[in-house]
């Protein structure tokens, strides 16, 4: 079942240059969908449409719709706060907010009006466990989150998103700054999480794309070149450009 339907989406910068051209794709529920391709292809921009984070920048939609559960989230009447609680995002560089580990997790919930200590404590434990970081931080939840290593910080950032109980999780090259062991932990956590969430990942390498993708979409210069099941895409791509990129002939 498709959780998200992107219909003929085109985006442009305020100077009129195009960022994405006529993208149409459906994104499956409870699966990892990977958006990959060379830099500047529009993957992150597309990701940031899904939680309307592009509202903060000079990128505007010029055509198209994005339906999540059948509702067009690009509609000006959309409640973007509610949308962002439903569609969480993990960024390329871990950005712990300047507060303790616990406060990082509860920040979003408190904004949403949750004040009950027991609820918050439950959420802290549950989300840190889901992000596979609980055992490493359970004894120092009140320490500043920046004191953690980069890999730990990124999993705390993932837990921070999970605490809001979103339905969709966007990850923009979440492991680009991490060592292979931390990367493995994050990837393993994603495989576990996809049972309950819809996950959209911009990987930091073709190898990661191949490892994690249930479905994969290849983007090149603002266009969707090919979209297929991960297994097919990385063994028998249909398009010459996709094959050339996967084989490392350009990129």
């Amino acid at each position: 079942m498709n959780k998200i339907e992107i219909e003929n989406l085109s985006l442009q910068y305020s100077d009129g240059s195009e960022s994405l051209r006529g993208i149409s794709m459906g994104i499956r529920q409870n699966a990892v969908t990977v958006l990959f391709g060379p830099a500047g292809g529009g993957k992150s921009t597309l990701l940031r449409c899904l939680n309307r984070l592009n509202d903060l920048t000079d990128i505007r939609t010029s055509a198209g719709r994005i339906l999540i559960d059948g509702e067009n989230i690009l509609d000006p009447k959309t409640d973007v706060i509610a949308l962002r609680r439903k569609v969480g995002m993990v960024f390329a560089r871990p950005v712990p907010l300047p507060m303790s580990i616990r406060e990082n997790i509860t920040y979003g919930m408190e904004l949403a009006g949750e004040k009950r200590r027991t609820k918050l404590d439950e959420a802290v434990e549950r989300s840190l466990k889901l992000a596979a970081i609980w055992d490493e931080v359970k004894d120092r939840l009140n320490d500043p989150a920046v004191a953690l290593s980069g890999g730990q910080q990124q999993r705390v950032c993932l837990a921070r998103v999970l605490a809001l109980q979103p339905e969709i999780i966007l990850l923009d090259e979440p492991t680009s700054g991490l060592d292979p062991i931390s990367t493995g932990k994050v990837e393993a956590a994603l495989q576990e999480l996809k049972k309950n969430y819809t996950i959209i990942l911009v990987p930091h390498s073709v190898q990661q794309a191949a490892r994690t993708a249930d479905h994969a979409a290849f983007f090149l210069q603002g266009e969707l070149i090919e979209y297929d099941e991960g297994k097919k895409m990385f063994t028998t791509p249909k398009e010459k450009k996709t094959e050339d990129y996967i084989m490392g002939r350009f990129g």
Partner: protein
Amino acid sequence: MMKLFARNRHSVQRIGYSLITLMAVVTVLPIVGTVIFILFKGGSAISWEFLSGFPHDGMRAGGILPAIIGTLYLTIGTAVFSVPLGIAAAIYLAEYAKDSALTRLIRLAIINLAGIPSVVYGLFGLGLFVLFLQFGTSILAASLTLSIMTLPVIISTAEEALRSVPQSFRTVSISLGATRWQTIRKIVLKEALPGILTGIILGLERAAGETAPILFTGAAFFLPRLPQTPFDATMALPYHLFVISTQVPEMPIQIQYGTALVLLVFVLTMNVIATVIRSRARSRRQW
């Protein structure tokens, strides 16, 4: 020629360093000199009676309590008006304003406001607050005048402090379902606070030491009692110093220097507080 230069590279460097060190010493010398000089000349005047008594014998004896209290009132009064307004303006400029003709005009106005001679502020205050708004020569009028003078300092340092908070904090906060205002209140302001406080103290410190803006707006030559309401005029340290240095014949010299010393301590204390806040915040900063 090149060869000669190459051989002497080390000595050229040494001479350069010595020159720079000399410059630094020359810069610091007047400040240290002034403090020592005033301490030496005025130290003997400082006593409990001097700090807690009223002047008598036409200012030639007694204490300077009303001037100390007056400067305190004026500083607080200035803070009341300039701090909320300055922070609000800085938040607008740093967080909300888009780059437009209007914001460029506002910035230009702030920069120019900082360059206006203080006596002009005094005349402006006289015209607007004392006469037109009929506040009279009062603490209120003087505080408002000093506020206008202090605002550019507070606005520009606060804006700078807000801008130095990493953009990624704002993006993350918004992505977690915060509104812009919640992000500013819970993250940005908290992180920028030490920088903002430093600017406030430096601005108020300047206000506390100024004579010209209060000359026509709130300062009194002599008052037999402390001001009771914001609509009373007040004595103030810088103006008192001006008065006893120029308007009173046969003035004992140590009272003049004693007054200067109290004013200096008042201002330097604020400066030290600002420095401590800044350095403590820097060592605690998590980014």
